């Protein structure tokens, strides 16, 4: 994949930060508004895909590192399963923080309400864990497939 024109690169520079922030917004508000870990993670990963195609694969390798992504992915999944394990006092996946008064533990007003970030127990934690996993995972997929495409093209030319 070659570097694209200067217009594309400049627009990418302008936009990708906003895309990432929007993705994290979706992840963080998963328990209040439409969205959640998967959707937000996919949005963040699309920012990486944008960087990859506008800067070309070789240049993008300088700031997108597969090893870091792979570490983040494992961390996200481990965090997810550890949160599930923490409920093991009662059952696996027990929502031990909901309505407890501590972290994310406010009582929610039944019925229609404007929404409170500090509710829903382990759901926000799991959203963050899954968001981390999904954006790192999709990032790895995109980078690896770009590598593979480059390799097959090289073989075609030779």
């Amino acid at each position, binding site marked *: 994949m070659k570097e694209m024109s200067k217009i594309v690169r400049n627009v990418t520079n302008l936009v990708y930060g906003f895309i990432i922030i929007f993705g994290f917004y979706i992840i963080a508000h998963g328990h209040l508004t439409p969205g959640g870990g998967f959707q937000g993670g996919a949005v963040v990963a699309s920012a990486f895909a944008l960087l990859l195609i506008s800067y070309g694969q070789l240049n993008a390798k300088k700031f997108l590192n597969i090893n870091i992504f792979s570490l983040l992915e494992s961390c996200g999944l481990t965090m997810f399963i550890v949160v599930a394990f923490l409920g093991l006092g009662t059952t696996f996946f027990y929502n031990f923080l909901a309505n407890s008064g501590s972290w994310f533990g406010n009582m929610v007003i039944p019925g229609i309400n404007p929404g409170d970030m500090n509710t829903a127990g382990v759901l926000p934690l799991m959203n963050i864990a899954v968001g981390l996993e999904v954006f790192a995972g999709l990032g790895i997929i995109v980078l690896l497939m770009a590598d*593979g*495409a480059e390799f097959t093209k090289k073989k075609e030319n030779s």
Partner: protein
Amino acid sequence: MIGNFPYIAVIIFIGLGIYTLMFKRNLIKIAIGICLIENGVNLFLITLGFRKGAVAPIYTLAPSGQSMVLPTPQALTLTSIVIGIATTALILSIAMMIYKHYGTIEVNEVRRLRG
């Protein structure tokens, strides 16, 4: 019959997917066929959850006094969409690997897949 129109759309999706898998001999087209079936099934699940005149099942600033659509199919579809992404990614990588080894993505030119 006209009330069941969304289900007809679903089976057209699935039927097209199966047709592609059976009669097309190109790896990328086979991947597209699988995506079509997957979209059909996702559409089917979402269709099951619809309730006439209802709103999305989210309480944050929802319009008052209206019923909500069934939430379970949405959760199931979310799961199956992510699984679909994973399937597509894996099948395309395998197609790339086959292209690397044989220089073609036509099934007829690859030895074992012919049968």
